[in-house]
């Protein structure tokens, strides 16, 4: 009887094991598989190949897929904001779908619960569709500004790929150790991972990993690892990708009957419209007064700042260093910045030293210090480094 009981309960236990294995299999297999899946490359070779591949005739290869962004920055509890808000990208995980046909054919869709926002670019024309407001916005894009957002690799046409690679690496070498991993996998495809590790002691960043597709050299993933944490603090990459040209329907858009239709003529940089202009002035003033202390990865930005400014600034651009890239950041406005600020400040710890006193906010990747004498220090460094920076007037 007793043995029978063991055998019976062995069945659900085996089922649980199978399910657990299926969930964990992807990362585990990718991590465990020791055999190099791709021929070895040095960092310089890899970069050269990547630049060469993207400079080829039509630019990057046509593709489509799902991009997922996950952040676990160790921020204090964020008040739940609209799911399409840029602030919501600071925590949790978010998905966008990308269809890339050619340099001037792009569709980015951000699906949310029973809603969807779409950005469709086709030639000089574009549409922005928001199902929540039932609004289609026709975008006419200024000429001469059509470089594709999907290829962040610089394309200086006067240099050979090898030269570009050497230059980048030479510059990086000072502060960064670079190596290449050739047995990783992203979205089921073998990739090269370019691993950049800061040489500075005080940096919070353990390493940055950039995955390039083994065949097309398209960047498939960026991961930022914080020190002392096995999971990336920030990750942006494809969870699913295919390198076949997407169907043409993806790049055509006709406003559905009954939808509000608006028109806008803008350059890509102007996506934020009027609001951004209003704050541009403020940002410019801030930038002119800002200075940088420290070198390379350990640099700390020192910005004149006061708590009263903080609210105004937050309504404008959220902390630029915390929302890197991601097509999703163009979508939606709002959320309650005041609530965010309150909750962030609540978690700040008061600190003091020879440099004065202030409030320290620490996340996995970024440390910020708001001194009582009206300076804001921000950097991807340890609290010790930032207080040291606060001491250098």
């Amino acid at each position, binding site marked *: 009887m007793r043995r029978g009981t063991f055998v019976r309960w062995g069945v659900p236990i085996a089922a649980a094991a199978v399910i657990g294995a299926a969930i964990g299999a992807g990362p585990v297999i990718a991590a465990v598989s020791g055999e190099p899946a791709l021929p070895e490359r040095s960092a310089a070779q890899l970069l050269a190949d990547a630049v060469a591949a993207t400079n080829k005739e039509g630019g990057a290869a046509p593709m489509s897929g799902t991009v997922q962004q996950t952040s676990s920055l160790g921020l204090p509890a964020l008040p739940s904001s609209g799911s399409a808000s840029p602030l919501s990208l600071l*925590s949790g995980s978010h998905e966008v779908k990308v269809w890339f046909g050619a340099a001037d054919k792009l569709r980015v869709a951000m*699906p949310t619960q029973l809603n969807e926002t779409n950005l469709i670019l086709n030639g000089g024309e574009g549409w922005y569709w928001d199902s929540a407001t039932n609004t289609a916005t026709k975008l006419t894009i200024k000429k001469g500004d059509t470089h594709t957002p999907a290829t962040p690799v610089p394309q200086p046409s006067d240099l050979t790929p090898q030269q570009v690679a050497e230059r980048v690496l030479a510059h990086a070498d000072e502060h960064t150790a670079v190596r290449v991993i050739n047995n990783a996998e992203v979205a089921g495809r073998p990739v090269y991972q370019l691993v950049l590790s800061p040489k500075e002691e005080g940096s919070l960043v353990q390493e940055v990993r950039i995955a390039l597709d083994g065949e097309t050299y398209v960047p498939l993933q960026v991961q930022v690892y914080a020190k002392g944490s096995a999971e990336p603090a920030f990750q942006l990459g494809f969870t699913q990708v295919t390198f076949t040209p997407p169907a043409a329907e993806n790049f055509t858009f006709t406003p559905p009957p009954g939808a509000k239709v608006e028109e806008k003529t803008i350059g890509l940089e102007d996506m934020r419209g009027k609001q951004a202009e209003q704050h541009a002035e403020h940002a410019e003033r801030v930038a002119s007064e800002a200075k940088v202390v420290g070198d390379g990865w350990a640099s700390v930005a020192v910005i004149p700042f006061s708590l009263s400014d903080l609210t105004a600034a937050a309504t404008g651009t959220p902390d630029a260093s915390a929302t890197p890239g991601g097509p999703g950041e163009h979508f939606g406005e709002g959320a309650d910045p005041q609530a965010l600020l309150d909750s962030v400040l609540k978690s700040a710890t008061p600190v003091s030293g020879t440099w004065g006193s202030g409030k320290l906010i620490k996340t996995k990747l970024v440390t910020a210090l708001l001194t009582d004498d009206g300076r804001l220090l921000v950097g991807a460094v340890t609290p010790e480094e930032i207080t040291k920076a606060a001491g250098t007037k």
Partner: protein
Amino acid sequence: MSTAESATSTATRRTPGLVPVTETMRTTERTEEPATDHPAAGPSGPSAPSGRRSAARATWAFWRLLGSELGLTFRRPRNLVMLAVLAAVPVVIGVTLRLVGGSDDGMGGIIQAVAGNSLMLTFVSFSFLVLLLMPVAISVVAGDSIAGEAGGGTLRYLLAAPAGRTRLLAVKYLNAVVYAYAVTAVVALSALLTGLVLFPAGPVTLLSGTTIPVLDGLVRIAITVGYVGAGMAALAAIALALSTFTEVSIGAIAGTMVLVIVCQVLRAIPELGSITPYLLPTKFTNFDAVLRSPIDTGALADGLLTFGAYILLFGTIAWARFSGKDITS
């Protein structure tokens, strides 16, 4: 007397025809082909002459038991009332949207979409019902399935009949799945009819902003019914598993509902974002993938895989518990 002692003693004095307990327990489970396994059954045995015929008989007997189970489920006033209530919800939603939507156009997109097209009411109804009301109906039927029989004492007569424990569990689960699909289909039909009466028919605007013909829209409703029904079937597996642990059906039903509500609460906590993709209710609302262009098959497949995992896990738990349980009610 210890088990070891009895084992050695029976090895020496064994009455002819006496079958060890472990063996008889095992054969109770396997109602399929007793004749081929046990030629000792003799001519008086109920066993059919050939294995194939006995397999065919077992199959027929299975369908007969399932038919009996379905008859019980769909004749029970309680279950019919739940179906009726669920059918009424889309009507209420439709009428409300009709009254509200007509007054002003400052409405959210989805409400406008309903007002603009009769088929959209189905999707909106599902997005409401899938959160709580449909899970309630499914938990009542699945949670009651074993516990209710145990509490009423009928379980002992079913098993003595002998229904066979694995066979009975399979029938009970299939019955719950059929009820889950009945609930889903009733909601879809009610919403479709209400929509056709209250709102204009015509090409359907998807969430992506593209427009598809009505027929395509109906196909997408059918896909939604298939997907949501599968989700409810996964929930039924959980309720069935809980049902095998108690003789009080309210316990199993309430337990399932508590799980659903806890999951909904967990989903609302942003810090727990990393576990929400694994929670079953998270996947219920994924049916909106059919409203995208192209259909987000990845999201649907992901949801179906999750449902399959839940069905596998809780189905085997229910089996492990039920096949070894002492029926003392």
